[in-house]
């Protein structure tokens, strides 16, 4: 059995001249919690839809749970729970009726889990879906995905509308009930704090390409931010360099490993090392995806940068 739950090779999806996904290479290990991060329009939802057959790829290839997305879609859907970005289900049906509709598709459906999660998430099971609040709609979407006995959960913006208590419950359920049973969780989200809390792998996508794919533990242990000062910025080239941020005479270097060696190289080029700091997922994300934004006065690079 393939040890990757999701594996894409050069996956592409174009809409006319717009390259929504442009040669994406993803490797999502089975049994992991994978945070799939990116800015608005980076290509996250397009990737998810392509993996689930809602969009046809323009190029490249992809396997989900070892099944080819072009030829074995029904097999993929049998083993994959999906919470869509828009959290919209049939408006006239109650959650209880939605459960009735959904359970027939999944042989491993668990009625016991339905009862448990309905109570845990405080879902009004007899209210028509259209009359539910956004938070309750999100809960129902999760209920349907969590109870189908999936090998892979693809959750697109999973915490939209949820209060902190339910968000906390959901994250615990994902880890304690699902991942502990071998389920892979693929989280497409903007909520970096949530991803950082439960993910063990992250992938950061920008303009349809993967910028970074690594273990979260690797970020914690090896990624460092090196702040340095110099009158003139030397040209730096290193495979360990992830991102550079400039602010007048200061430079911030985000490196993926061997920060001390990198700092020594900077010193050798005449720079003064101010500090070497561990970084959070948010700092890595911003370092990779942030544009050089003008400050309110219009002068570039004067905003206090995280990186």
């Amino acid at each position: 059995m393939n040890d990757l739950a999701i594996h894409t090779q050069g996956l592409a999806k174009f809409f006319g001249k717009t390259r929504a996904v442009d040669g994406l290479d993803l490797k999502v290990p089975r049994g992991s919690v994978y945070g799939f991060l990116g800015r608005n329009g980076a290509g996250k939802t397009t990737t998810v839809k392509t993996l689930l057959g809602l969009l046809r790829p323009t190029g490249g290839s992809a396997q989900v749970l070892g099944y080819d997305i072009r030829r074995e879609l029904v097999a993929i859907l049998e083993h994959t729970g999906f919470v869509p970005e828009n959290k919209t289900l049939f408006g006239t049906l109650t959650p209880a009726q939605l459960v009735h509709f959904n359970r027939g598709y999944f042989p491993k459906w668990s009625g016991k889990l339905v009862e448990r999660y309905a109570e845990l998430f405080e879902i009004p099971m007899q209210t028509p879906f259209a009359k539910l609040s956004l938070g309750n709609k999100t809960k129902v979407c999760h209920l349907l995905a969590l109870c189908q006995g999936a090998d892979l959960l693809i959750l697109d913006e999973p915490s939209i509308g949820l209060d902190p208590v339910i968000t906390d419950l959901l994250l615990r359920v994902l880890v304690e009930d699902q991942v502990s049973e071998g389920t892979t969780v693929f989280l497409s989200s903007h909520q970096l704090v949530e991803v950082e809390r439960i993910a063990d792998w992250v992938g950061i996508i920008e303009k349809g390409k993967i910028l970074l794919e690594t273990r979260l533990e690797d970020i914690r242990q090896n990624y460092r931010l090196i702040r340095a000062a110099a009158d003139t910025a030397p040209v730096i080239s290193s495979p360990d360099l992830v991102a550079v941020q400039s602010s007048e005479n200061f430079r911030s270097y985000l490196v993926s490993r061997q920060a001390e060696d990198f700092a020594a190289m900077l010193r050798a080029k005449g720079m003064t090392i101010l500090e070497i700091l561990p970084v959070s997922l948010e700092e890595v994300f911003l370092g990779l995806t942030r544009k050089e934004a003008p400050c309110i006065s219009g002068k570039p690079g004067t905003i206090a940068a995280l990186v």
Partner: protein
Amino acid sequence: MYLWKAWHDCRARVALYILAAVSIGVLSGLEVVSSANFHAFLMAYMAFQRPAGVSLAVFNHYFNSDFYMYITFSALRGFVGYGRPLDIATFVAGDWAFLVAYGLTPALLVSLTLGTTTIGREYDAGTMNFVLTRPASRRTFIFTDWTVGVTSMVIIVSGLVFPVFPFLYVIHAKGPGNVLGSLPGLWVLGAAVYGLSQFTTLVAGSAPKGLILSLAAVFTYSLLPVALHEWWHTDALLRLTDWTLRPFDYWAWPLSPFDWGATAFWLAAAAVFLGLSVLWIRFREV
């Protein structure tokens, strides 16, 4: 599963349509009986009168009122033939044929509206990504909708026509006779129109837009041949349209055999629209 959902979505409408259809059917039966009695009365009255000029005028006046009703109800026919039922048996056949002809419009409306309560409207509702991520082949959604919708349409249309049966036996021992063969024509036309509406709803991604598109297609089919005939004096399309609607021609058919050709045409049309929907959903992205 989806079968349950498809039935859940249209059951209220189907129940309402069946109730309306049976009510109209019963009222039509009563109308047939009263009409036949009046016809018999006129025959007796005309036999009594010599010469019959005035009474014939009266007869034609009442008789033509049926034709006016036919014109009112018929969505597809632009002209009406004339004839004179001379005995009760022919009258029964004629009235039955009339019922089938007036059943055409309800059958069309039922098929058009039921065709919009199908998977195509899920685009507009924002639920298509949920439906299409259920582990089932996409064509099963189309086939399921089609099966539920066409079965409902057949029941509704039959509910419109079958209640008239007992009344026909009341006025004549022959009852509906060979004209019963017209009903399958109505079913098959309904299936074709349902398929059209299902397809346009799928293409438009919305029930109201799909209904507008399918109505436009029906009116184009009905009016374009007449327009070509009037403006460009081209009869080919008009002849084709007339041929396809022969099973629903008030006058041509009560004494004619079952029209296999036109029925096969609508059966083929139903299959084509079903095939188009299957192809469309296969390649449609969400």
